């Protein structure tokens, strides 16, 4: 099987690759959003703890 055949998906390229791209996007977003939220929270908590200690 050649690479172009692989991407062509027997004529169903649009349906197959849209499905896979959509899935990839949603799975990645579900990892990135919690990671960002965690980083923000940890930074915020650290800042508060330091502020309280220095007060």
């Amino acid at each position, binding site marked *: 099987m050649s690479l172009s055949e692989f991407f062509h998906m027997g004529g169903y390229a649009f349906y197959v690759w849209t499905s896979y791209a959509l899935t990839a996007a949603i799975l990645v977003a*579900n990892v990135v959003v919690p990671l960002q939220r965690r980083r923000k929270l940890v930074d915020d*908590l650290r800042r508060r703890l330091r502020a309280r200690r220095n007060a």
Partner: protein
Amino acid sequence: MWTWLHKLGSPPRFYRWTGRLIPWFGAATVLLMAAGLYGGLVLAPPDYQQGDSYRIIFIHVPAAWMSLFVYMVMAGAAAVGLIWRIKTSEIVASACAPLGASFTFLALATGSLWGKPMWGTWWAWDPRLVSELILLFLYFGFMALQGAFEDRRTGARAAAVLALVGVVNIPIIHYSVEWWNSLHQGPTVTKFDKPSIHLSMLIPLLLMALAFKAYFVSVVLMRARTEVLDRERGNSWVREALGEQ
């Protein structure tokens, strides 16, 4: 078992344990998904009726299974939170909801993208499709209800009741293709006799299903862990966990 569960319910322990577990589940997700994608997109032959369009099965079916599985986990955790007032359990339930909604949406969207070339339509008012759509609204309802109260724990209780009532939808989705005359095909894998799917397609399908499961565990724990940290922010263990004295 019960004492173990109770210990795990204590926030600092939950935080520590999940911190150890997440990397393993994350690594398992990557490996299983790589193997499943290779098997499904490269090694498996085209279907004799559907050509290459059937390859959507490797994400559609695992996503649909997960949409039901996550709901059961969510309802189970919500019930434990409701009955024994275990906060960690409420947190796990709330961490499940966006993931469950994501899997349900993916099952519907990839189903639509598969339905168009095979059935000739993006959508049909079919029992299987409609009950899955109701599942999506149950997840949305759960999330909305949780946030609708001033007090987070009141919201968690109200949402838990909705989640438990919504459990009736789960067998309806599962059996919809048998109870009603559905456009959707019947089960090919979970039949008691031999599954009517060739091994070269079944193996990548199961690998993808396991990958989705490992993915769910790692992300749900990640979300729950952050939430535990947030709600326990005043406690001394949080200071220690963050490396601040």
